[in-house]
């Protein structure tokens, strides 16, 4: 397969991950931090996320399996998982953690068990997606190509700049570096 085709495939795949909310803007930040002096940054952070998360999920299963559940401990673990998933941009996992923490506050055993299942589900989904993404990147690099930077528009802050003749002007913060101008039309 040609490098250009692989690059296009990677860009399309990454875009679907964003559109389906598996990843958010924070993931693009990681890619911006990867450079010649730090060529494996994304791989290292993602791997650390996997190791950390799997340990936390195990700890959570054990904590919720106790005859008398220590919700403070459970909450502490979920807090960590929320922090890591937020740092790498694993949006769905982070959102599941937020819900989880709410039920921890209520000390609701049934609901927290359901939340654990939900978090596990989201984690394994995003793990699969990230592994696929990294594999695609490795294939491109192995074939001598470079990893294309993705630019995405995110409506993260909506600022009213002021009134204009035809209506209100909004500004949208974008992330990433432009690689070609045609992609902005697909937003």
């Amino acid at each position, binding site marked *: 397969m040609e490098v250009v085709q692989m690059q296009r495939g990677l860009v399309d795949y990454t875009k679907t991950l964003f559109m389906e909310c598996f990843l958010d803007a924070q993931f693009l930040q990681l890619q911006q931090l990867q450079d010649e002096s730090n060529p494996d940054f994304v791989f290292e952070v993602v791997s650390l996320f996997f190791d950390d998360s799997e340990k936390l999920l195990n700890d959570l299963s054990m904590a919720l399996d106790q005859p008398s559940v220590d919700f403070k401990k459970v909450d502490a673990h979920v807090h960590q998982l929320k922090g890591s998933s937020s*740092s790498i941009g694993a949006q769905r996992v982070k959102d599941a953690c937020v819900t989880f923490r709410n039920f921890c506050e209520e000390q609701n055993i049934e609901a927290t068990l359901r939340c654990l299942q939900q978090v596990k589900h989201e984690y394994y989904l995003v793990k699969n997606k990230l592994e696929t993404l990294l594999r695609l990147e490795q294939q491109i690099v192995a074939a001598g190509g470079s990893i294309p930077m993705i630019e995405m528009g995110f409506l993260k*802050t909506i600022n009213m700049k002021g009134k204009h003749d035809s209506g209100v002007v909004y500004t949208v913060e974008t992330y990433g570096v432009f690689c070609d101008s045609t992609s902005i039309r697909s937003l």
Partner: protein
Amino acid sequence: MEGHIWIESEGLGKGSTAIFMVKIGSIPERLNESKLVFMPKVPPNHGPTAFPGLKVLVMDENGVSRKVTKGHLVHLGCDVTMVSSSEECLRVASNEHKIVFMDVCTPGMDGYEIAICMHEKFTKRHERPIIVALTGNTDKVTKESCMRVGMNGVILKPVSLDKMRSVLSDLLEHRVLFEAI
């Protein structure tokens, strides 16, 4: 939507702003809020774009979050030391560290107490590093607690590269940075 879109940029590597105008039926109330508040964009010719050799200490219990914060700072040229506990932080902090970033949203870890201890360790203001809280909590209580214990600033996580750059620039210039919460 009968609109048009254009892009403004200050140059290569400086990011871009896409501006679009479209006709929308009615504007929902909530669009008038800014849920996440970013620091105002620093114009490119004010302030450095890198901070070579700036010694920074980062305290964060979470390994992933720590690595990402370090990534941002190293990318900006900083000399970063990482610690994962308050004891380590107090032990390692020296007057060579210009800025200390502390994650204060970990339940059970008292970032506030460390700030007080730091004030005790470095009694002379010019020797004391700038102490900044990194938090995911967007509430006034967190911000007020930080101010009360003498922290020099509060930054909301997650942090982007652009934001980290302007944070460092602001801190070095003004020694204070409390983000609007």
